[in-house]
């Protein structure tokens, strides 16, 4: 199935292998990308995509393999070396210096400022101040800065590792357009994403990795999706329950009732009811107050106005522990905020189990092990590198943040874009899992940046624009154009507010 290497390949890697102690990340990976081509790099979580990118750009040394750049054998020994060869990456994790402002970050990487400004504006953040501290920027802006910095360097080969996972819909569109334009201008792009819509939109070909092997290099054409999934996973998977859900019977009292909630200058006035057994989607463009909403509900931030009622009782949280005690548990958007990177998978998952003062004593090891194992199984976490979470692949890290609350047992689950960077099979499992939890009586608030997920996972969706709820849409009616219009505030309700 492997095509013969294109003689014109700008980047041609063959037989790349890399192991970390006992974990084999790459066994025999290869990839060729020609000029003007967008090559998708696909594979399940932990297949070795990020490792491959890191090897190509000199962050990691391969155990074996050859890399040819523009026809010449090359050994890229460091990120700066990669750049000299024309390879510029955007890694899966933000790679900016948190304590420097944007201007200094640019200076550090010898990035010209004018093109950078051009690209951030192009990518949808025209007002970004160059003296903004990286630490204070939201994740989405960081991704855009990362990309703009790469573009400003005018690379021959641009390598994008799950750049869009943490981006809201509107920014994704701009990114896709920009990337395609790069290819059309003759540059090469290696594009990693778990979203097929994106792959279909901009990629020419796809290189598929499975367990560290390159198993295919195929052209993107209509209908190829299921075949790629099959190659990625080594077998077919059951299709997602795309049939719209029966509208949830919102009978009985709401589990969580939010009214006129307000904080900071983004969350202005949000009211919503969440019923037990319901999965309520939240749709919003970047920075419409959704982060603040989840933070307040999780006790991570104080509301300056409005009320929160849990199970009929007014609630005021002065610490996440209070929210957890009231049954509200959060999977935050940025997994770096949720994970103990230097600790094991088990400790990460079991953390809430020991958080309270009365659980400070002896840990019931068997019970804990059972809960953790079942959570790992339910989310299919690849535990090959479980000794330290930071050694897991990005998608598997994301799964750990969810598994934690599965192990604890959920009442009201606040999911902030939980499928970021998760592969297609697991995504479907997560939709099923969320549905399961709801069926068992849990209430789920589900923010997603992927509009399609509303129909796949939710019963209803509230759309937030400019800090206010502008629409509530039944999942059955929540096709993407409808959601998109609402998200941009193009509905009657929004016009009124």
């Amino acid at each position, binding site marked *: 199935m492997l095509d013969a290497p294109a003689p014109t390949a700008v980047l041609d890697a063959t037989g790349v292998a890399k192991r970390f102690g006992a974990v084999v990340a790459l066994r025999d990976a290869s990839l060729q990308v020609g000029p003007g081509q967008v090559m998708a790099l696909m594979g399940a979580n932990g297949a070795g995509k990020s490792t491959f990118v890191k090897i190509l750009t000199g962050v990691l040394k391969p155990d074996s393999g050859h890399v040819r750049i523009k026809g010449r054998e090359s050994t890229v020994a460091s990120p700066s070396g990669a750049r000299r060869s024309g390879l510029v990456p955007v890694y899966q994790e933000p*790679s*900016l*210096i948190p304590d420097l402002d944007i201007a*200094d970050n640019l200076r*550090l990487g010898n990035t010209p400022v004018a093109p950078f400004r051009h690209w951030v504006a192009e990518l949808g953040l025209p007002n970004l101040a160059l003296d903004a501290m990286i630490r204070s920027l939201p994740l989405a802006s960081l991704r855009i800065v990362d990309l703009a910095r790469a573009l400003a360097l005018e690379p021959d080969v641009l390598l994008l590792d799950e750049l869009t996972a943490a981006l809201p819909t509107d920014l994704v569109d701009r990114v896709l357009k920009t990337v395609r334009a790069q290819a059309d201008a003759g540059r090469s792009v290696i594009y990693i994403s778990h979203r097929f819509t994106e792959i279909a939109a901009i990629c020419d070909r796809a290189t598929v990795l499975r367990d560290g092997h390159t198993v295919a290099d195929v052209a993107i054409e209509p209908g190829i999706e299921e075949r790629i999934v099959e190659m990625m996973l080594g077998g077919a998977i059951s299709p997602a329950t795309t049939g719209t859900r029966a509208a949830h019977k919102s009978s009985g009292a709401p589990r969580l009732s939010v009214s006129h909630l307000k904080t900071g200058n983004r969350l202005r006035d949000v009211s919503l009811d969440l019923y037990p057994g319901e999965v309520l989607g939240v749709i919003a463009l970047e920075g419409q107050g959704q982060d603040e909403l989840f933070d307040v509900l999780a006790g991570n*931030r104080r509301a300056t106005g409005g009320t929160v009622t849990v199970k009929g009782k007014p609630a005021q949280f002065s610490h996440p522990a209070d929210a957890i005690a009231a049954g509200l548990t959060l999977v935050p958007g940025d997994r770096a905020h949720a994970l103990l990177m230097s600790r094991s998978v088990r400790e990460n998952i079991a953390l809430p189990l020991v958080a309270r003062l009365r659980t400070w004593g002896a840990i019931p090891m068997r019970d804990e092990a059972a809960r953790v194992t079942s959570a790992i199984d339910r989310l299919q976490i690849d535990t090959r590198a479980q000794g330290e979470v930071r050694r897991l692949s990005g998608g598997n890290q994301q799964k750990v943040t969810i598994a934690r609350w599965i192990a604890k047992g959920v009442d009201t689950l606040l999911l902030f874009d939980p499928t970021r960077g998760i592969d297609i099979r697991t995504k479907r499992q997560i939709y099923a899992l969320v549905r399961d939890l709801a069926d068992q009586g849990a209430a789920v608030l589900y923010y997603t940046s992927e509009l399609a997920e509303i129909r796949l996972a939710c019963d209803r969706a509230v759309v937030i624009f400019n800090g206010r709820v502008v629409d509530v849409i039944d999942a059955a009616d929540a096709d993407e154009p409808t959601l998109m219009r609402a998200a941009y505030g193009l509905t009657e309700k929004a016009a009124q507010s």
Partner: protein
Amino acid sequence: MKRLIEANAWTVGLAALLALLLIVTKLIQPEFGASGLDSLARAALPFVLATVGMAVVVIAGGIDLSIAAMMAVASVTAARLMEGATDPQSVLVLITVLVLGLAMGAINGALIVVTRVPDIVVTLAMLFVWQGVALLILNAPGGATAPWLRNLIVGGVTLPGFPPGLPPSLTDWIPKAVVVMAIVVTAVWLPIKRSKLGLMFYAIGSDPLAAFRSGVPVGLTRVAAYAVCGLFAALGGLAVTMSTGIGEPIPGPYLLASVAAVVLGGVVLGGGRGGLLGPILAVFVLRLVRMDLTLMSVDPNVAAIVEGTIMVLVVMFGGLLALRGARLDRTG
């Protein structure tokens, strides 16, 4: 502008505290004047240099437990070589000692990079090594200093703009030690801070992985940071020798004092954040507290209690302010 003040709020606060303490000193001791400032500055000099060196490595994400021992090595080397040296020879000695400082720091840094042992362990081990080296160079206090060097930090400098002919007691308000301090610190740090090297120090301190991915040669930068620290340690050791006139092989109390001043000065342990002005001001605050306690003839044991309390209170106060700021929207 507002951002600038906000970003430097801690430093501004320290400067205010220092001003307040100076006023208090003047109230306790109405004769406090040029000579008092002079002795304050001379006392602060080695601490400032040690603190600046420590601040540089802390900013770069490290720590150097061997700083006082390196100062001792520099001090005994200078004292030993200057014994009986002519003035031109003593200049040569000066340069030798500075190069020695750079080399000691670079050795610390290189060992950290090459062995991959955490910096606290490496510099702890090197603390013993440099102590040993100091003892081998001079096994008891001794040696000498060139007189011109000693005079370099004695007395004051006339403020520009004063009409000539006034008595020195009216004009010599800027201690020479402060001038030396300012010249030395700016001469070394300003070019670094202005160049990309300074940026790289902050970068590897803030996030070494991101720095590496941004193309920073992390290992070399780390070695450079430690070398700069070594240079300041050598300057600090020279300052000790300049004020005492001899070399002492036993390291002075500069390790804990410099770490404390660095933290008090708003440099975050762990790296990436803070500047040099805050730590320098913190040194002066600590020295002035000590001076006031002596002036008030406070019982020396109580003085230790007061010093400890003030140190904790200053940081506590800052912590409270930071908490209040965070409280505005964050919970807990």
